[in-house]
């Protein structure tokens, strides 16, 4: 049982939950994730450990509500409980010893890249973060990342920071030179674009793959991704891989496997909420 001790809305569809999980808080390392199951009947879903407070015995999960399971999770309030939190899973990030790293975050990927930026900064690596969102209200983790180094914010509509996509800012930074590694985490098209962009510069580029998972321990093979033509399991061999070797097309395609079910589940959830709201109104009217 893992109680929620804090809840913050970070953007219109991104919420931070601080959850009790003392063992994981104590030993987790950047790049690792947990598998979360809300309760009986719920799905097992992977979420990155965005932050941890070993003294308080808590971890932070930053969740983008895009479907049934993530909506159910962010509907929890402080005091609510998540039944299962298993981890820490996946390989920790291989961190640079020194030099200059660029951390690129798209959408909720910014929360995934944050613990990496923080750890790099702690060991003396220079960090430049490039983060983006549709408009100002969608930008998350700017303040936290500023504590780790420079931050370039990009918005699609130009309402805040630089106008345009994170890839454009990344190109400028690469042009300026002196970059030892790029970490790029976000939607598949964004990670692919970043990897293509850095390839001609020969800059090592690490991406975090969000393959569909069940167990997170290597026993199902559902999370298989193709790296340099060889199958690997994102949950145990990753989730971070060399972006120049990832078959992004395959990943994007496999992520659509359950699209029909996902839309159906979301529709059913919304219908149920509507029914509940109507029932409540009726009850209040009486």
């Amino acid at each position: 049982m893992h109680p929620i001790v804090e809840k913050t809305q970070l953007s219109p569809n991104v919420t931070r939950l601080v959850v009790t999980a003392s063992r994981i808080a104590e030993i987790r390392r950047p790049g690792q994730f947990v598998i979360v199951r809300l309760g009986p009947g719920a799905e097992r879903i992977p979420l990155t450990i965005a932050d941890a407070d070993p003294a308080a015995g808590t971890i932070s999960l930053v969740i983008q509500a895009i479907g049934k399971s993530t909506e159910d999770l962010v509907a929890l309030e402080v005091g609510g409980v998540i039944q299962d939190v298993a981890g820490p899973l996946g390989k920790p990030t291989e961190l640079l010893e020194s030099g200059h790293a660029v951390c690129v975050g798209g959408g909720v990927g910014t929360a995934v890249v944050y613990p990496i930026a923080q750890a790099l900064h702690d060991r003396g690596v220079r960090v430049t973060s490039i983060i983006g969102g549709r408009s100002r209200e969608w930008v998350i983790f700017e303040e936290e990342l500023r504590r780790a180094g420079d931050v370039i914010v990009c918005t699609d509509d130009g309402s805040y920071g630089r106008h345009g996509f994170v890839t454009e800012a990344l190109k400028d930074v690469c042009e300026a030179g002196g970059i030892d590694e790029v970490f790029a985490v976000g939607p598949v098209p964004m990670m692919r674009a970043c990897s293509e962009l850095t390839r001609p510069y020969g800059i090592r580029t690490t991406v975090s793959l969000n393959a569909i998972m069940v167990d997170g321990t290597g026993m199902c093979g559902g999370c298989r991704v193709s790296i340099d033509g060889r199958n690997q399991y994102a949950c145990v061999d990753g989730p971070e891989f060399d972006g120049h070797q990832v078959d992004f097309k395959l990943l994007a395609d496999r992520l659509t496997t359950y699209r029909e079910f996902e839309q159906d589940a979301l529709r059913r959830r919304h219908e149920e909420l509507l029914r509940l709201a109507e029932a409540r109104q009726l009850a209040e009217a009486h």
Partner: protein
Amino acid sequence: MPEMPTGETPAARDPEAASPTSGPAGGPAARASATPADPGATGAPAPRPVLTKKERMQIQRQLMPEQLAEIRAGNFGEVNLGLTEQLAILEAERCLVCPKPYCIDGCPVRVNIPKFIGHLMEGDVRSAAISLLDDNALPCVTGRVCPQETQCEAVCLRGKTGKPVGIGYLERYVADWAMEHRDLLPAGRPAASGRTVAIVGSGPAGLTAAGELAKRGHAVTVFEAFHAAGGVLLYGIPEFRLPKDIVQAEVDRLVAAGVAIAPDSIIGKTYTLPELREQFDAVFVAVGAGLPIFMNIPGENLKGVYSANEYLTRVNLMGAWNPESDTPILKGKRVAVVGGGNVAMDAVRTARRLGADEAAIVYRRSRAELPARAEEVHHAEQEEIHFEFLTVPVRIVGDDQGWVAGLECVRTELGEPDASGRRRPIKIDGSEFVIPADIVIVALGTRNNPLLTSTSPDLRLNEWGYIQVDDNLQTSMPGVFSGGDIVRGAATVILAMGDGKRAAASIDAYLRGELPPSTVTSPRATEAGESTEASAGAPRPAVEPAAKVAPAAPTAV
């Protein structure tokens, strides 16, 4: 709800029993039904007439009542419905209670079969249950999933001239009775020994060891990677063969006996084995062989290709058979399952129940070599599962959207026997053909999952990555024992349980300082050129309950 076949009684459906020459078979049957002994209520013995050997020989094997194939292929209810009390006693009366019972030799854990059957034929189910539970910790499970036809029933004397005694059916009957009547069975908590034991993995090996160790008063914590305990019994074997409430009841019974279950604890990640060893007086590693094997043929990354592990886990553990469940599963109209073992049969029959019009087994040898339990093959055939024997897949064909469209195969013929003694399939050139399919499930076995072993440098593995143990199931790490599939490679439930029982006995001896040191040496000791004594070690004194490693409040799951 499962439905009983209507019309004829199971006894009458037995072709042997129905034969007019079997005449007196009706005698004992009539007697059995004329004696309304009701052990179902109290288990108290009711006086029964003693049959002569000749009379026993005349009783034909009783058929297991089962759901009709047409009906059950559309639901997940259990196929076998279990013998009634009358059928069970009648079947028990077929046992000759041999002075030199071969059946005991046929059972990997040497269940005293004539003893429990003897009590049963006297109508004393309670004594039968006490005897059975003494030998076998999970008889509800083995009565349903043991390959009896190659074990106890294979060597039953009655099998020489007809059908063997239905030992599995009787085991199931007695075990189910015991589960319903726990209150009538002796219980009692032993005095606490003050020793702590960690068990890694909650499959049949881990659960059996947990029960045995708790009986001896040790404080046991079972660490399980998944959110629920049971191992393959829970996520692998489907509901229609092994109802999950049975597995849960067994787990509940352990919890009631004082065993703590720590779910969501992945050893190798949440804790390492060396950490557990520091916090507990002994550790039993029973993590199974959980890694799926793929075919490494083109098209395996198409949408609609599953490992049997993933397919069965989604359906069984995550409840995806229920349309209301949050976990999705692709429901194919045409499903091809590659493999011929129990796992393949479970996957194909699950696909059938999820609505596949055509569900096929693709197997490279012939029917005679199918490694699955005979009953599963028989049930699959009744459920109109299609079998493509002597067939090997070479490629999975996809459509332009990345979905599976078919399975391209070649035919094989059988050559000389290979190392396993089975005839080796040889591909026939030019025999390519495509089986239309929208789902392909790969059920070709499993391997060691390196998650735990790769974080335990002192653990000696064999060349296939399985853990090496000595005769007492000791590993190369002092105080660490292992058994089940992680030692044997994918084997059976009863072998895993046998290991659990042996390991518990060894651990108990170890904790009393009475076990000789392991003969398996640490890989590091050998590397460093040290003597084997490096791995020997006396048990440490009892330590404080492991506050750091044991989760604050281990919960029953």
